[in-house]
């Protein structure tokens, strides 16, 4: 599972960023990137099948749990290897690593619930006539879901 973005619906309001930050006690995991003043794209952890961040993690803090790339904070030393291993730059470290946890423990990811434009979903079926889904797949080959 991951968070799917219907790029044609994103309005660049950054509500996903603020909501994610709010429910995670101040540390947010999604970044909206603006492209040439013509589009905005929120970049989420893809929960890659072959997660390079988990491969690089020497302590096992980052690891796969089924479809999800999970994070065990107790094992993290903030070494920074994961942040350098992510092809999308979505993992960041400050004392410890910070990464999307799909709002584990909540009924649905806060970003999906909050998006005013209805651009985010977890089931890969965006309600758009364009159907241009930015699926949970890595741009770099090898991490395709």
């Amino acid at each position, binding site marked *: 599972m991951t968070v799917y*973005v219907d*790029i*044609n619906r994103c309005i660049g309001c950054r509500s996903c960023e603020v909501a994610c930050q709010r429910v995670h006690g101040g540390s947010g995991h999604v*970044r909206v*990137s*603006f*492209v*040439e003043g*013509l*589009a905005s*794209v929120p*970049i989420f952890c893809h929960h890659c099948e*072959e997660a*390079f961040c988990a*491969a*690089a993690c*020497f*302590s096992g803090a980052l690891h796969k749990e089924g479809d999800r790339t999970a994070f065990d904070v107790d094992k993290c*030393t*903030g*070494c*920074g*290897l994961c*942040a*350098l*291993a*992510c*092809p*999308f*730059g*979505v*993992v*960041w*470290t400050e*004392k410890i690593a910070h990464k999307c946890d799909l709002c584990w423990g909540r009924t649905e990811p806060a970003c999906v619930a909050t998006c005013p434009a209805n651009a985010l979903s977890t089931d890969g079926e965006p309600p758009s006539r*364009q159907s*241009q*889904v*930015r699926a949970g797949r890595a*741009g*770099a*080959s*090898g*991490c395709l879901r």
Partner: protein
Amino acid sequence: MIKVDPNLCIGCRSCSNVCPSQNILRSDSEGIRRILWKRCREECDLCVEFCPAKALTLVPFDESVSEPQLSFDLVSCRICGSRYAPEPMLSRIEAAVPPDSQRDPEGREWIRVCPACRLRAEAQRAAREGVSGRRGEALRRGK
């Protein structure tokens, strides 16, 4: 006190983060990361245990031995030029990622690109591919 093997240390942030007595000082400035392992009398071995490269060992306290220090040039991002990571850390990533996954759709060695630029590149890719209509045409025209 700590002994560091300079051939093994990758210049990461682990030991400086875990030391409970702030004996290990790390700073990034002007494109160089410097790590200083100060003399310590502690008997904890957190830094040793949590070193990804197994570069640290505990040795008996000795006033005459100088405190180990290492410097690492921070590698420049291939896109924006910002100095973002020590070379040994990047080499370690290159060893961990399958070789045929180390180039992005534009053919770049993405490990040699800083995380901020990787995120931006992913956004550009997604926008060029996915945005339709008037905007999509403009995005695909532009470069």
